């Protein structure tokens, strides 16, 4: 057990995490591409038309994964932030900072695809129902987090302040998720369209799951890329960054 702990702490230092992340990124890209292509193939080319919603329903393959990711990334971000606050590890702040823009992107895409779906389905781009609204709030929370971190120049202070905000904002996630249950709203609850036409459910489900996996892999890859940049920037005074970028004539890479 102590062995595992040591390993964990080893990779919790930016110095060893940096090359590890570098090695992992291409794999995640590859997985994202594979899942994405498979999911889109099923979703756009194989799955038949939905009897009620027409072809427009194909947006589901984009909308649902981004919606899920936007909530999930927030949880992960808050987790890292809390870890940083509790144990003062350098890596956690960087990870939280790296995740936020991707989360904001996902929240934005969820809103965008949702709006483009809503126009043909409900006849309007936007309604003020609980789920849509709470997703909007989620976007605001992301942006608030990013703005707060950007406004504080000392990275350590920025990390801690951001962490407090992220933890306070976590209460919003259950609200989004359960909003459909708690309030009777226009937005459909889980599985409504799935039970309507069970024959089709299998292909649809598969397409959606694959797309969700693709989004997941994409998010990890992008977050790792961003984290690597942040690491270099923040650790630019340490020896390992210097050795990496400015190898001494005598030594090797």
């Amino acid at each position: 057990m102590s062995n595992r702990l040591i390993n964990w702490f080893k990779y919790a230092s930016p110095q060893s995490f940096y090359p590890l992340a570098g090695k992992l990124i291409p794999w995640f890209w590859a997985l994202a591409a594979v899942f994405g292509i498979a999911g889109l193939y099923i979703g756009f080319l194989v799955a038949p038309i939905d009897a009620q919603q027409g072809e427009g329903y194909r947006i589901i393959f984009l909308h649902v994964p981004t919606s899920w990711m936007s909530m999930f990334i927030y949880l992960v971000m808050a987790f890292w932030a809390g870890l940083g606050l509790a144990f003062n590890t350098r890596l956690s702040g960087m990870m939280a900072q790296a995740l936020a823009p991707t989360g904001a992107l996902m929240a934005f895409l969820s809103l965008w695809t949702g709006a483009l779906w809503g126009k043909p389905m409900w006849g309007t781009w936007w309604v003020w129902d609980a789920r849509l609204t709470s997703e909007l709030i989620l976007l605001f929370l992301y942006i608030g987090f990013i703005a707060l971190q950007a406004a504080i120049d000392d990275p350590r202070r920025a990390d801690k302040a951001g962490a407090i905000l992220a933890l306070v904002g976590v209460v919003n996630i259950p609200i989004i998720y359960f909003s459909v249950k708690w309030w009777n709203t226009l937005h459909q609850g889980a599985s409504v369209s799935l039970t309507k036409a069970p024959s089709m459910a299998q292909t649809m489900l598969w397409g959606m799951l694959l797309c969700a996996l693709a989004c997941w892999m994409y998010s990890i890859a992008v977050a790792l890329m961003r984290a690597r940049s942040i690491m270099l920037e923040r650790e630019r005074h340490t020896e390992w960054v210097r050795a990496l970028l400015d190898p001494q004539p005598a030594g090797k890479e």
Partner: protein
Amino acid sequence: MYWNSFSDFIAMGTHGPYVWGSFGVMALLMILEPWLIARGRKGLIARLKRQFRAERAERNPMDSRRSRN
């Protein structure tokens, strides 16, 4: 394969603009984001290398003279 023709596929019933609007924007942003990060990273590395080189040049000719403000 579900579709009869390519133009059917593009038209998506009557919902083409909506489907392709969301797909396009999503694809665009998902390409833009890593591209921006990669570009920023390149700039950062170049800047740091320049800085390190400058510091080394400043330090090497007379190592003992190095001082800090």
